[in-house]
Each structure stands twice: as structure tokens, then as C-alpha cells.
């Protein structure tokens, strides 16, 4: 077997914090001084001697990551947000360059996250196929030979000479995906976290990925969806805070990932270096799973309500903020999503929040969960504007079903929910 990808001690350092110091004017004097010194600052910055270096913090998005991947293997990459997954893919596809270490990549690297890059709304479908193909590194002769296939795959044959700005978003995505899917790279990189489009489209992406793997090409697959990782990969690596902490068969890696970093006590606290700078002005403090009595627990009873308490700080006033929970199974299937301002009166009252400490507390009614372990994800965002903070696997808890409906039979029930339904039985004759 030949090695397709060989990663040796890769590190990637980013500068952070420069932006915050830049606009911190307290007095008119600062503004004037800043304005007067601006040309000097520009000149210094251009020759690489930035005087702001003092204020800059450096973070290692990736540190000392090494692994080899043989040709034809499918490798899953799992890790929390900010663990360095996307940075790793960006280095492998040469978008950004490592600060330390070396990588050797055998063959062309294609990625399904670049669908539609370089598409121009004014150009027709036909023109965009050529344009996009060239951007992805295809030769014109190569595009010529695959043109009909691409058009067929995209199902937009009759609109191929229409400007793509007249396309529906579905047509647009299909066409873009068709080009990317026909690039036929030796190494395919799929970042499902960043994948755009609807569920149908994402399924198509995953399907294509499966096909590629079947053809014996090398695939790297990043996902938060553990069932997809288990289904599509044989082996996975786990990244944590920029470091590779495990490489194992997928099942083992997924189990490790899901149980790591989640305290057994039903409580999760965030320390300063867990929180990305981009989350400001939102700072998560802690997340707790409690019984109604107020006791923090790791295991809750299906027949009792569960309280989920999310404490956070807001450093400056925010409008449109909503704080929510994502409950999912250990296989990555969502059970439900809920936000603290879902109800109209809370929405009215807390749509804009002043700076301060907050707790958003939700009571999940009894008789919801089936037996098993569930993951609590938290999210703080302004709808359609910005996502401040997200952690899909912030905490996990177990559900005990003793006393739940149907336990008299002692058989496991399928499905993540175990509702107490209001059955009526009527005898009709």
C-alpha cells in the first residue's frame, strides 16, 4: 500500500486579539493620536514591524499533529468546535499553510465544501461549469469530456444556457455539486460541518462520498454526526484543542470522543481557554442537568422532569439573542431543539439583553426520553445574524426508565423518545 497522505508534526498558529485593541478609544485624545500616527503604523505594518504585536495573542489551532493515511482508506475526523478539524483540512487542501511541520500529499485534493466557488450569477450554467471546473483545477479538455455527464447529473439540462441567477437555489446547488463531484480527485476531503444546503443535498454529498470510497480513493471526512462517521469510515482520529489524542477504529474513537471532556457529574463548566474569542460578547459559564429537587445529577429518571440550566455572561448589550439546547442521542441524531425565547412573552421581554450574568433554565417534562445516554448541546445566536457560541456536545446524561410506560415487558424499545401516550381502548361490540 502506498501512503496517500503523510502528516508530520503539523502546527498552525493564529494571531488573535489584534482587532479588539484596535478600536478601543477612550478619549478624543486617543482618536487624535491614533489618527496622526496612522501613516506611521501603516508603513510599519507593511514592512512587517507591527507595533501592535505586543497586544496580540497567539493560539495554536493545531499542534504537533502527525498521521499517515494509506491510499483507498476512509478516515473520519471528530472533535469539538475549535479542535482544529477545519484547519487541518485547510492545510491539506493548501488553502492555508502550516506554521510548523510538513505534509506530503499524493495526488489532487478535492473537497466538497468548495461547491459553487467562483460561480458568477450573470454567467449561464454552461459557462459556469467551465469557470468552476477551471477554478477546481480541471483542464479544459477534461471539462469538455465530462460536460454531458455533469449536465445530466445536475438535472438542469434545459436551463443550461440560462444565467444561473435565474436558477432556483436547488438547481444552483445541484449544478455546483455536479461540477465538484466530477473533479475525481485522488483524495477527497469532506467537511460536513461546513456543508451548505438542505438535508437532501447533504445526503447527496454523503452518497457521493460513499461512491468515491468504493472506487478505492482516499477520503477524509469531518462530521459532528457520529452515525455518519460510523457508517462511512472504518477508522477515525479524535482532535482536542489542536492535538491528535486518539486514532482508532471508528466505533472506539466515537465512544472515546463522546465520553471524553464530559464530566460524570452532570455539570460542565467553561474555562477561559475553552471559549473562542469569536463568541464575545457571549461567555458561557456552566451547564447543569438537575433533578426537580435541585440536585445535579448524571442520571435522570424518564418519569421525572429534567432541568437543564445554562449560565452565561453577556459583556455588552445584545439584541435578538436566543440561547438554546440541542438534545441528541449518542449516535448524533437530534431528538429536539429548543430556545429560551421560543414563547412570545419571553421573546418580547428578553429579545434585547443588557450586560450581566444570566441563567436560562428549561424544564424538560417527564416521559420524554427513552433509555440511554443523551448529549446536550448549547447554542447562543442571533437568528440570521450571527452565531456567538455553539457546543454540540457540551454535556451528556443518562436516562433511567424504571417506571416508564411499558417497562413491565422488559424489552428494549426502539427510538429516542418514550412518551406516555393517552391510550383509549374501546370495545366495539
Amino acid at each position, binding site marked *: 500500500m502506498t501512503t496517500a497522505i503523510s502528516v508530520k508534526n503539523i502546527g498552525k498558529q*493564529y494571531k488573535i486579539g489584534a482587532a479588539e485593541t484596535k478600536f478601543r478609544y477612550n478619549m478624543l485624545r486617543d482618536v487624535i493620536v491614533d489618527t496622526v500616527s496612522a501613516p506611521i503604523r*501603516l508603513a510599519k*505594518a*507593511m514592512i*512587517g514591524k507591527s507595533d501592535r504585536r505586543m497586544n496580540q495573542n497567539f493560539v495554536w489551532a493545531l499542534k504537533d499533529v502527525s498521521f499517515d493515511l494509506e491510499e483507498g482508506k476512509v478516515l473520519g475526523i471528530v472533535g469539538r468546535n475549535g479542535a482544529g478539524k477545519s484547519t487541518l483540512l*485547510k*492545510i*491539506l*487542501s*493548501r*488553502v*492555508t*499553510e*502550516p*506554521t*510548523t*511541520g*510538513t*505534509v*506530503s*500529499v*499524493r*495526488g*489532487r*485534493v478535492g*473537497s466538497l*465544501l*468548495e461547491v459553487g*466557488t*467562483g460561480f*458568477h450569477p*450573470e*454567467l449561464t450554467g454552461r*459557462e459556469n461549469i*467551465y*469557470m468552476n471546473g*477551471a*477554478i*477546481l*483545477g480541471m*483542464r*479544459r479538455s477534461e471539462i469538455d469530456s465530462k460536460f454531458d455527464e455533469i449536465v445530466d447529473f445536475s438535472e438542469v439540462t434545459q436551463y443550461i444556457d440560462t*444565467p444561473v441567477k435565474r436558477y432556483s437555489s436547488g438547481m444552483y446547488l445541484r449544478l455546483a455539486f455536479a461540477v465538484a463531484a466530477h473533479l475525481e480527485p*485522488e483524495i477527497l476531503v469532506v467537511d460536513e460541518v461546513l456543508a451548505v444546503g438542505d438535508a437532501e443535498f447533504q445526503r447527496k454529498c454523503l452518497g457521493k462520498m460513499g461512491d468515491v470510497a468504493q472506487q478505492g480513493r482516499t477520503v477524509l471526512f469531518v462530521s459532528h454526526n457520529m452515525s455518519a462517521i460510523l457508517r462511512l469510515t472504518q477508522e477515525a482520529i479524535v482532535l482536542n484543542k489542536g492535538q491528535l489524542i486518539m486514532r482508532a477504529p471508528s466505533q472506539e474513537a466515537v465512544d472515546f470522543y463522546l465520553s471524553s471532556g464530559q464530566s460524570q457529574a452532570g455539570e460542565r463548566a467553561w474555562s477561559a481557554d475553552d471559549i473562542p474569542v469569536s463568541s464575545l460578547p457571549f461567555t458561557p459559564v456552566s451547564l447543569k442537568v438537575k433533578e426537580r429537587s435541585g440536585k445535579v445529577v448524571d442520571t435522570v429518571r424518564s418519569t421525572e422532569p429534567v432541568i437543564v440550566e445554562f449560565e452565561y455572561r453577556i459583556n455588552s448589550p445584545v439584541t435578538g439573542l436566543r440561547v438554546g439546547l440541542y438534545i441528541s442521542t449518542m449516535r448524533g441524531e437530534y431528538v429536539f431543539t429548543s430556545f429560551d425565547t421560543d414563547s412570545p412573552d419571553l421573546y418580547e421581554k428578553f429579545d434585547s439583553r443588557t450586560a450581566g450574568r444570566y441563567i436560562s433554565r428549561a424544564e424538560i417534562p417527564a416521559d420524554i426520553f427513552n433509555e440511554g445516554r443523551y448529549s446536550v448541546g448549547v447554542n447562543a445566536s442571533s437568528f440570521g445574524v450571527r452565531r456567538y457560541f455553539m457546543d454540540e456536545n457540551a454535556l451528556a446524561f443518562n436516562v433511567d426508565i424504571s417506571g416508564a410506560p411499558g417497562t413491565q415487558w422488559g424489552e428494549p424499545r426502539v427510538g429516542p423518545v418514550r412518551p406516555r401516550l393517552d391510550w383509549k381502548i374501546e370495545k366495539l361490540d
Partner: protein
Amino acid sequence: MQMTELIKYEPHTVYIKPSKGLAALNLRDLWIYRELIFFMVWRDVKVKYKQTLLGMAWAVIQPLMTMLIFTFLFGKVAKLPTEGIPYPVFSFTALLPWGLFVTALNQGSRSLVAHNNMVTKIYFPRLILPMSSVFAGLVDFAIAFVILVGLMFYYQVTPAWNLLWTLPLFLLLAIVTALGVALWLSAINVQYRDVNQALPFLTQFWLFATPVAYSASVISEKWQIAYSMNPMAGVVNGFRWALLGTGNGPDITLWVSVGISIFIFISGLFYFRSMEKTFADTI
């Protein structure tokens, strides 16, 4: 400061690693991606006049209107000397390379930021972006050139025959100058969007510093060398000399312009290449 260089070790294998010192220009990758330059130029040209009523006519109207305004202001009102050439032909000859330069400068300087989704998502030699912006301006240039030929017939100005080889050389000088400045400004623009703010002012200032509306002969003798530090002065004088036979032809001032132009271009290439590794992170 680290840089990455990519070495073709054996077929199909790419080595990615940080390196220190000046970045290699990596012309090999540029060659591999040569078709992309063609496609980008082709796209820019195709898209430029889409959904306009007048379409390609804008390539004619823009320099023609500027020429008319100049003719009125500087030819009729200010009566600037033109060395015996009708003012419309005199200014239009200069507006050709100037138009090319301004388009290239503006589009080229904004090219990286304008295509930030390409820069942050895929690998390709970033040099392609400013390069194709500059080349796309050549199409407008060619159209406007036809108008100039018409003007010369109308005003019965006979060109010198050596323009067949001198004109392409001056055109090349214009392209090298525009590309050099675009390389510098596009790379700076990635981190400091001050460039966006400065561009309109810069182009206006540059226009006054270039003998477009007036003749370079109005500059006094002792300032000629300093004046030709602006490479566009050399380009415009060269165009007038090649097409209309005005001025002294190639002399020391031209070589100063050529020297400055090449210096901007080479230093721009290296500055661009050394900043290239940070584009995707800072854009």
C-alpha cells in the same frame, strides 16, 4: 515568518511545509493553472457589461466622454499647448493607456478581497487574481484603440510607421506598471482595507501627475527626471511619441520610468508572494 514552498518531488506528490526567507515565485504552479487565467479574464469581460443597455459601447463612451470634457476644459478654455496635434487626438492617445492603467489598478487592487470566497476555500496561485484583472482591461483597450484610429483618420494625423513595434513595447510597459502597483495594493488590501478608501484619491492624484490632459513639455527641464519617476509618464509620452510623433522619443526620462516600473513590479511580486501565505487567514 514562515513560508510554504511546494516542490514537485515525484509525479503527483505535493510537499507542504513552512520555510524561511524569501518565497520562491513558484512559476511552475502558475503554469499549471494557466487556463484559469484565461477563464478569469474571459469571465470578467463577459460579466462586465451584462444587463447594461449599452453593453460594450461603454468601453467607447467612457474614454470618449473624458476626451470631450478634456477638449473643452484644457483644449478650448485653457488652450494648453499640444505640439501641433488636434487636442482630441492628443488627449485620446493618452487616455488609452491611462484607461487601461486605471481599470487594472482598481480591479487588480480589489481582486483578492473581491474573490475572498475563492481565497479562503481553495488552492490556486493567488497571483492569478490580480493578473487576470489587469489582462481583462486589454479588451476595453482594444475597443478604444479602434476609436483612436478613426479619430486619427478624421483629423488626418499620420502615424509614424515604427509604431508597429514601439507601441506594443509601451503597452507592455503600461501592463507591467499596472500589475506591479496592483500586486502591492491587492496584497496590502487583504489586511488593511485602507487601500479601498485610498484608491479613488490615488487614481485622481496619479492622473494629475501624468501628462494625460497636458503635454509633458510644460514641465521645466530640471524637473523632467523627477517627473518621469512616475512610470505612467513614460508610458503616456511613449504612446504619444509612437502614435503622433511628439516629444523626443526614448531618452533618459523613459529609462527612468522603465526602471521604476520594473522595480515596482519585481518588488511587488516578492511582496505578494511573501504575504500570500497569510491571505486565507487574514482576508
